[in-house]
């Protein structure tokens, strides 16, 4: 029976190292600027959270396996070998204290993409059996049941019925040849069913054909979060097969940051070929509708509101302007948060951290950054475009006893749609 071993982990590190990783390790001058960009350092003051330090296991393997001097010195037994104890120790740093938010990758003066490295380091950690329990459970549920939260299609069907009733619109399932395949995150199915209603209303108004798919409704990908390409491939394949079978033109990623990253950027590389369809984030689609005059809204939000940029959308996805243009249609009192856009601070729960029970205390502590930002702004409503951010924001606000409603951008747009004539 196969099992995770240190050797498998070491082999996985070796497999993951490529030219960019080598260039990054060669270039680090230990300037410490990545620490100042990291929520986990700035809010705790503990230097062990310095991003480049989190990559020590990967660096050791690179040095010993892929550098001339490292090979020679390790032949002579002069280098410190990577040990299983190292990995056990680094588990906290590689998983609990990194949300893959990518702020460090943007500030590094020599240009190191630290998130790229963390993502690869997790491959080794998974293979060595040092991934967090919470994420292992989620991955198992995703593969076996179909969703990390254990949501089955029957659950979604119940929500569909409810949405059809509320909106008076039909929600198409498994339709072929339509323009859009809409996939959801289980958080949206369980916590925010308004999202599905919003999609139905918007598609109806824009006069677009779309469908859900009974075999591929779940977009969150625990494989990426835990750091296993093999599991991620298995999960993303469901959507690829569905999209290609249904012959849709575009797959719409839900309001979920990492789901977008997997579908849009990693998916083709996981399956080893380009897609035969496009992938767009719902915010991108809405903005296209807006630009094409297909999105008609009426009335404005009077509340003072701000927007929390999901990291995977801005720093790892290039979606910065679109949500602002959409907000412009429905909000009068929109204010920008400090460092908004490319440099926005993470909510603290991305990259799978929200699934790790042991990380909850730390996650709540680093939410302090968001708390300070929001207190400065004195807003009445917080808008975001990621279901995971939304949950973390709500939890964080509750922990710090702040009374501030958090709304999804898609729903907010849907609420202002011009009703049928």
């Amino acid at each position, binding site marked *: 029976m196969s099992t995770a071993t240190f050797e498998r982990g070491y082999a996985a590190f070796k497999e993951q190292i490529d*030219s*960019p990783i080598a260039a990054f390790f060669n270039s680090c001058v*230990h*300037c410490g600027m990545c620490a100042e960009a990291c929520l986990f350092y700035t809010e705790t003051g503990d230097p062990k959270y*310095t991003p480049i330090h989190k990559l020590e296991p990967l660096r050791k393997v690179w040095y010993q396996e892929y550098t001339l001097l490292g090979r020679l010195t390790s032949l002579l037994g002069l280098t410190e070998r990577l040990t299983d104890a190292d990995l056990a120790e680094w588990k906290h740093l590689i998983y609990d204290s990194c949300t893959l938010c990518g702020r460090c990758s943007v*500030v590094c003066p020599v240009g*190191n993409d630290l998130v*790229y490295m963390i993502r690869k380091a997790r491959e080794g950690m998974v293979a060595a059996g040092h991934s967090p329990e919470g994420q292992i459970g989620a991955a198992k549920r995703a593969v076996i049941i179909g969703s990390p939260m254990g949501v089955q299609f029957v659950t979604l069907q119940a929500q569909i019925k409810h949405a059809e009733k509320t909106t008076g619109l039909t929600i198409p399932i498994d339709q072929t040849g339509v323009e859009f395949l809409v996939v959801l995150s289980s958080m949206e199915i369980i916590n925010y069913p308004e999202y599905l209603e919003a999609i139905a209303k918007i598609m109806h108004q824009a006069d677009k054909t779309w469908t859900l798919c009974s075999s591929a409704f779940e977009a969150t990908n625990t494989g990426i979060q835990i750091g296993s390409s093999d599991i991620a491939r298995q999960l993303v394949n469901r959507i690829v097969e569905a999209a290609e079978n249904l012959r849709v033109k575009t797959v719409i990623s839900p309001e979920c940051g990492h789901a977008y990253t997997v579908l849009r950027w990693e998916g083709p590389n996981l399956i080893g070929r380009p897609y035969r369809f*496009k992938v767009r984030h719902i915010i991108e689609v809405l903005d296209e509708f807006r630009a094409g005059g297909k999105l008609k809204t009426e009335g404005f939000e009077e509340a003072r509101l701000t927007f929390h940029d999901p990291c995977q959308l801005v720093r790892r996805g*290039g979606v910065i302007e679109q949500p602002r243009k959409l907000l412009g249609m429905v909000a009068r009192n929109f204010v920008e948060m400090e460092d908004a856009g490319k440099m926005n601070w993470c909510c603290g729960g991305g990259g799978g951290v929200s699934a790790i029970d042991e990380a909850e205390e730390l996650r709540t502590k680093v939410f302090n950054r968001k708390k300070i930002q929001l207190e400065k702004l004195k807003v009445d409503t917080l808008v975001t475009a990621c279901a995971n951010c939304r949950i973390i924001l709500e939890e964080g606000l509750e922990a710090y006893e702040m009374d501030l409603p958090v709304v999804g951008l898609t729903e907010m747009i849907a609420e202002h749609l011009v009703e049928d004539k």
Partner: protein
Amino acid sequence: MMSAVDFLAWVRGPMFNIALIIFIFGVIVRLLEMLLIGRKPDYSEARESAFAGGVRTIFRRFMPADTGTLQRSTTVIFAGYVFHIGFFIVLLLFVPHILLIKDTLGIQWAGLPTPIIDAATVMTLLALLVLLINRLVNPILRFLSTFQDYLIWLLVFLPVLTGYMAFHHFIQPYQLVLALHILSVELLMIVFPFTKLMHTFTLFFARWYNGAIAGRKGVKA
């Protein structure tokens, strides 16, 4: 005992040869061993040009990412700038250095008057001292720093210091201090390929990779 003149002849001759061989050989090997590992192709649909992103980031990272970063890492950024700019002014615009480059590479350019070089040297030395103190005092840097970080600091500090001392005749005879200066540069050349000094070359690749990855996604990294 070797006289100052013999010492100078040795550092200008055989020792320079040794240092040059190790430097060139090491840098080429290190770059090739890095570049030949290879990487997987990216099949995702690009939003923008990865190439343009790579080029942009190579230049973009000469500046701090944003004002917040500048505020949080003021010392490192400011002293880092002064050190790097000062070091390159002294290295590339002092006439005797240009003549060395002309002799070895066959290219040359105009130099700066020595009082400017002198001022740049002092600024560089001060910036290096600030960087060292910062490394010893700042909790992140103290935590991150290894023996190599301090060794490289010293090996970078020495050529600047001995160059300054040579120019001002702090040690007599002049041949001795000139030889010490050249030797310190040779030590720097010898350790260069095997330490973080390689960032001089590899940072362009690192920025390129980072910028290309981000550029593909439409992110201006």
